């Protein structure tokens, strides 16, 4: 009565969640769409070309590296290179020349991702590596700001709200950008950073889908608000309010979309809190006391470098660790 059927052998568990790496990545891509659309509205064709060049250069670099490293091409379309391309373009000034965009994109994928071994192995957020490369190699081009198309002013003299705060003593002069303009995005700055409302729509989606760890934006925003709040209380005629600091510059895109990058943020909840508080504190320090008007990029990159250490030491508690036999 021996049966002839032979069945598959595999190890347990036999059920698995439907989520996958590409699904997570495309969820993030989707969540960036409101901000991408807002930047197209505010900066029109300048923004469109930035996106197209960044996407093309990132995907091409990814494809070349996968080919050279003899990796499967399905990684090209896992969505991670698209996220890098979008985030890089979003953090560039609208008037940046297109060959610089391509250089930044190559730096992102090559130096930010593949020198470490590709997706999952990189230490730093790839988009921020590309942006840091451009910032250091082409400082003038990276700090020349065009206003949104709706504001008729001279291109050469236009400054971001944070630069005005830092270099023009904007609080005392009364020339600080209004919270309302910051919220809707009607200010100068990197193309995808300016519209807070559009970014928050995407962030809410990611939090609802539980794609990102809520602790990271909560820790960054909370720490920055507390830090800048103390100085605002001490000297409201010199310093901007915590709300201004949260709405201005790259804080929202950084806290919700960059610091939360799974690969480059800590694994354990405790690690996430330490990472987030450290990032928030550094942003506050750079903005208030550093030489740059903005500090989101360097703060996240700096804290990224602590993640392997945090993963090693901020371990969760094993069940039964405290009890005695």
């Amino acid at each position: 009565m021996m049966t002839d059927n032979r069945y598959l052998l595999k190890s347990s568990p036999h059920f698995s969640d439907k989520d996958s790496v590409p699904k997570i990545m495309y969820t993030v891509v989707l969540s960036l769409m409101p901000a991408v659309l807002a930047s197209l509205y505010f900066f029109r064709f300048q923004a469109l070309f930035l996106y197209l060049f960044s996407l093309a250069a990132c995907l091409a670099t990814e494809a070349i590296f996968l080919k050279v490293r003899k990796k499967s091409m399905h990684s090209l379309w896992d969505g991670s290179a698209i996220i890098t391309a979008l985030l890089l373009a979003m953090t560039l000034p609208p008037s940046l020349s297109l060959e610089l965009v391509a250089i930044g994109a190559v730096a992102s994928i090559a130096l930010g991702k593949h020198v470490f071994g590709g997706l999952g192995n990189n230490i730093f957020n790839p988009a921020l590596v590309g942006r840091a490369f451009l910032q250091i190699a082409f400082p003038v081009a990276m700090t020349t700001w065009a206003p949104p198309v709706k504001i008729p002013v001279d291109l050469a003299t236009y400054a971001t709200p944070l630069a005005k705060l830092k270099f023009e003593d904007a609080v005392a002069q009364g020339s600080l950008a209004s919270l309302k303009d910051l919220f809707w995005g009607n200010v100068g700055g990197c193309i995808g950073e300016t519209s807070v409302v559009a970014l928050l729509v995407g962030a809410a989606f990611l939090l609802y889908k539980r794609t990102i760890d809520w602790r990271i934006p909560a820790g960054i925003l909370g720490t920055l608000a507390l830090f800048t709040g103390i100085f605002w209380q001490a000297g409201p005629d010199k310093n901007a309010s915590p709300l201004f600091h949260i709405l201005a510059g790259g804080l929202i895109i950084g806290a919700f979309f960059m610091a939360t990058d799974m690969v480059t943020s800590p694994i354990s909840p405790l690690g996430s809190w330490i990472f987030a508080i450290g990032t928030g504190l550094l942003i506050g320090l750079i903005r208030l006391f550093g030489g740059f008007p903005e500090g989101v990029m360097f703060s996240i990159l700096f804290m990224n470098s602590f993640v392997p250490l945090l993963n090693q030491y901020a371990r969760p508690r094993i069940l039964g660790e405290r009890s005695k036999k």
Partner: protein
Amino acid sequence: MKKKTFPRGIYPTEYKTLTSDKAIETITPPEKVFIPLHQHFGSPAEALVKKGDEIYMGQKIGEAKSLFSASVHSSVSGKVLAVDGYHHPLGKPILAVTVANDGEDRLFPEIQGHEDPFSLGPNEIRDKVKDAGIVGLGGAAFPAAVKLTPPKDKPIDTIIINGCECEPVLTADYRLMLEYPEEIIKGAELVRIATGAAKVIIGVEDNKKDAFALFQAKSNGFPIETSILKTKYPQGAEKNLISALLKREVPRGGLPFDVGVVVQNVGTAKAIWDAVAQGIPLFARILTVSGSGITKPKNLMARIGTPFQHAIDSCGGMVEGTNILVMGGPMMGLTQWTADVPIIKGTSGILAWKEPKLAIEFNCIRCGRCVEHCPMGLVPTQLMKSVKHEQLESAESWGVLDCVECGCCQYSCPAKIPLVHWIRLGKNQVISLKRKKSS
């Protein structure tokens, strides 16, 4: 009432409605049964019969020769055809007694019950449980008599009767609780007497409220509390259940004894009652035969040694195209290459379905979901990396031996990494390294 639970864990789809309303159906035993002499945690039993012997149903055919072992009994009456290696659900041939069933079910004449089991002392109960070859029926098949023998320096105050059945798909324990609540309660009382504990807690998940209500109604007169737990996997895992019900943590590498607790599954409690009150050894069990690969999913009462194929045939056979066969639940069950393997004491379920194409595996993206869901507080992705790079000391320091292989990490892994597989490999390697060092 507030539902108790443990931290972390997962909520997989249950699929329990396939069989939850199907009453237990007793199937006629096949013409031949194949009874392995090793069906439990510990060392195998030694054969007491040889080819050609005429034996009774319930007659002992394998003797436990050490503490960590369990005796084995014939599940039919008839003639011994062979004592030889045979297919086993653990994947390798194991010594088994093949019996030609004469169809008469002649019960072993020396079997006798006891009129007032509650008057027995701890030692008498323990001996009867050991003699009946009872093992944990939740799936791990740990010899029950060992659990009834706590070390002298570790007093037991609480017995937990595990009615969680947290594995998806399985409903055998649920049906057992609905159909035999009194036997479970009385068996629990025997466990309490044997260990000298003060009270019993029966824990049931809130997807089985009717079973919970039955226990509440029937436990009058016994020192029994009934507790409702959140439906969450792995609610029924021993250490997590203890932490949920009593807020006590079993120390790392320790046993429930260390925190004054003994945990028994509901099926084990009933088997203990049957053994002590009626003298019936463990030679049949209740199991769920289900999944999309089974034509008519059912809950069965089957004799130990019945081939899977016979049980599947009693459920209308296998659906065309089915390519995976599992013993146990979908989270921790063992895949089988053939349906010729026999039902053993630990067979809580037989599941079959058509397995989709293997998902593409990605690099770990350090999303942390395995950490977020691990009920033991481990970092599965780190364990996987340590084992993969053959860093066994690192794996041990990250707690590889604390893993209970529940599968929550792999279930929630978006990169589809076979985490449990790596961890299991690491556990084996660390244990054999330790053995080498100590010898």
